[in-house]
């Protein structure tokens, strides 16, 4: 896994440096190559931390897809709800005056716990109400009901926050510890929180990987994903496994939401949409249904976006700017899928019917 991250960073860095060398005379106002080199570490860290957030959201899509073969469009809202729960916990503690008294790392664990439980519970509820009755229907039917859930949840959160706080935007309270910066040089410095996001995400991904690949329940999940009918013949309670899958996926989404809120501070009831879309793309990029693939896809997409957004305008003298980063990301996605139709890590599997 780390190898892939390092590899992606290395390849992209090498690419921009080579481009920087080739085009070094294109800018008259500053030394292009030097500028490229100067911001490189910062861009890499930004990309990795954004990538890990994508990776965690992508897991929710991919786990549900692996088991049920359907795209859970409401996952972006489950992610958003996680971010809101984290914010609410912090804000309530803040108004109770205990925020400063608790150690920041315990705070982090606390909001992660609440966010994961809340989002996981929500995902399970949504499954029970809107998806389970549709399990026999054609694949696109739960997709539409998921879109319905998505629209409903956005407004439900807006409604709740409107009554509860009369706010549309929520801001995570500033916690000094997370805002500290590790200064390496005059141009390169990282905040503690982006390191925490990266470490937290890695930790959770490792645990999940272990859980799915090395425990008995994990084996059951994989069995259900592979063949539901046979798995149930082997004595696996398929419904229970599906609920568990939704819970894990939702909890990962919730954790991602909390980390997202911590990293970028401001959230609103529609925050989930764009990261959700990107993470979904990332899940497919990595090979949907494949857990390592989702992580890889998320990280690669995050890093690619960061490089694209940071370097495009430097190289083109502003003719193409950061606004083209989406074009870059989607073009690369299309290209990769043309050459590897099942995603980066996906095997070319049986098309189910």
């Amino acid at each position, binding site marked *: 896994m780390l190898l892939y991250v390092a590899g992606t960073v290395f390849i992209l860095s090498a690419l921009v440096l080579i481009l920087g060398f080739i085009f070094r005379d294109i800018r008259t106002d500053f030394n292009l190559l030097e500028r490229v080199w100067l911001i490189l570490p910062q861009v890499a860290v930004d990309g990795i931390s954004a990538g890990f957030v994508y990776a965690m959201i992508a897991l929710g899509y991919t786990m549900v897809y692996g088991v049920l073969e359907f795209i859970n469009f409401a996952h972006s809202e489950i992610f958003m709800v996680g971010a809101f729960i984290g914010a609410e916990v912090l804000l309530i503690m803040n108004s109770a005056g205990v925020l400063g008294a608790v150690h920041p790392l315990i705070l982090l664990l606390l909001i992660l716990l609440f966010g994961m439980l809340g989002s996981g519970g929500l995902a399970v509820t949504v499954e029970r109400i809107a998806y389970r009755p549709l399990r026999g229907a054609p694949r*696109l039917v739960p997709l*539409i009901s998921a879109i*319905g*859930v998505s629209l409903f949840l956005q407004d439900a959160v807006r409604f709740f926050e409107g009554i509860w706080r009369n706010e549309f935007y929520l801001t995570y309270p500033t916690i000094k510890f997370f805002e500290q910066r590790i200064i390496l040089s005059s141009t390169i410095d990282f905040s503690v929180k982006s390191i925490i996001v990266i470490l937290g995400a890695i930790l959770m991904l490792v645990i999940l990987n272990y859980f799915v690949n090395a425990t008995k329940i994990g084996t059951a999940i994989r069995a259900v994903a592979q063949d539901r009918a046979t798995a149930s013949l082997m004595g696996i309670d398929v419904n229970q496994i599906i609920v568990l899958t939704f819970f894990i996926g939702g909890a990962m989404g919730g954790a991602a939401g909390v980390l997202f809120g911590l990293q970028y501070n401001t959230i609103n009831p529609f925050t989930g949409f764009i990261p959700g879309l990107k993470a979904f793309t990332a899940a497919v990029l990595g090979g949907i249904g494949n857990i390592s693939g989702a992580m890889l896809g998320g990280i690669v997409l995050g890093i690619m976006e960061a490089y694209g957004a940071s370097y495009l305008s430097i190289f083109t003298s502003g003719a193409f700017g950061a606004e083209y980063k989406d074009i870059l990301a989607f073009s690369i996605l*299309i290209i990769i899928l043309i050459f590897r*139709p*099942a995603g980066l890590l996906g095997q070319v599997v049986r098309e189910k019917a």
Partner: protein
Amino acid sequence: MSKSTTPSLWQRLMATQNARITFILAWVVITSYLVVATPRQLAFGLATQAVFILFAGSVLWLYYLQIPNALKVVIGFLVLGVLIPVFGGLNQYYLEVATQVCIFSALALGLNIVVGFAGLLDLGYVAFYLVGAYTWAIFGSPQAQKFIPPELLKFPLAQEFFFPFFFLATFLAALTGIMLGLPVLRVRGDYLAVVTLGFGELLRVVANNLDKPVNITNGPQGITPIQRPPLFFRSWFEGFGTALHGASTGLPLGLDKVFGGIGSWMENANPAQLYPIYFYFLVLLVIAIVIFVSRRVSDSRIGRAWEAVREDEDAAVAMGIPIVTTKLAAFATGASFAGAMGMLFAAKQVFINPESFTFLESIGVLAMVIVGGMGSIPGVVLGATALTVLNLQILPNISLALNSIRQAGYVIPVINYNLAQLPSQFEPAKYQRMVFGLVLIVMMLVRPEGLLPAKRRRVEIHQDKEVEAIV
């Protein structure tokens, strides 16, 4: 379809053809009367809207009841071609809703070819709509002057160019479909969904950014004013109005007033009043073509090929179906419909910018296809109608009614709570999308096969849920 052994009261009532014909005629006449009779001052009254929806429901009856086809055509023409435009003269909101229903129906029918017939999940359908819209918007407005020197060509192009461009837009959209199709055909199932999603977003972002280095789309500022098609029929229309006016004098039963009114309205109609009707008919024409093509195609060789590919791609290949051409044909046909509609949309709106072509629009059209019933032409039309009417007519008007109840200071009797005190968070206008989401969920739970499913699919769903689960 289950055959019930004992006929219900309804079946016994509708047993004879005459009864059915009487019923549909009575329905049309009574609802038309109600539409005309409901005072327009109550345009916000829900009754007005309900009455119109009931009236429009006659098309549904027309589809359901078994009456001679010739009669169906006549009544259909009467309702769609005569009464709706006339009611549109009374209340142009009706016409606007009808036009948008037709636009979305055509889009949904186009997507139905790709998703319903060929089984290729396309999440970026709106891209083709965008291509059509921008094709005319750029050249039918002063926009093109920004990259083509005036010595070469003067822009905007004359109104007459609308029709050649109509074919060009259709063709370009089809070409885009093929261009997207060619590279992604290796990709199957949900991967295809994401590639198309990416493609749709890609085109939107390009349109949003192509104001530099060369200003082609004018970016987020959008393009305006866009030329409308020429009103070539205006003199004919006015002449007909005069004739009608003249002929109506002396008619009994107040008919002189009705026809005379229509006649004098037609005589004096200005472009602002004519264009909505014109666009309605244009869209209706396109939708007729789309339905015709859809029906013909679905029964043709290529339609069977699509079905085969949808059901089992490998088996289809084994049977010698050329996969590439088959899939490309689906993409191209679906895309061309969207292109045509996009162009009409641009001309109707006079202004377009990339915000009209977001991912949510694609999802909305997909929802229409699935709510209506994938692969079923009447189903898709009904789905598009239901969702468009719900979003544009029912939900806004309900929230307006609730709003006026609230403003009137209605007091809930038992708990003695004055609604005027309701805080603004409960404003009904704010939660239309929430209700829309709920309706989607409930509809899927209640009728997963869609409102009017294609026969095959319906059987599939109800016959063997377990088998379908793997599909």
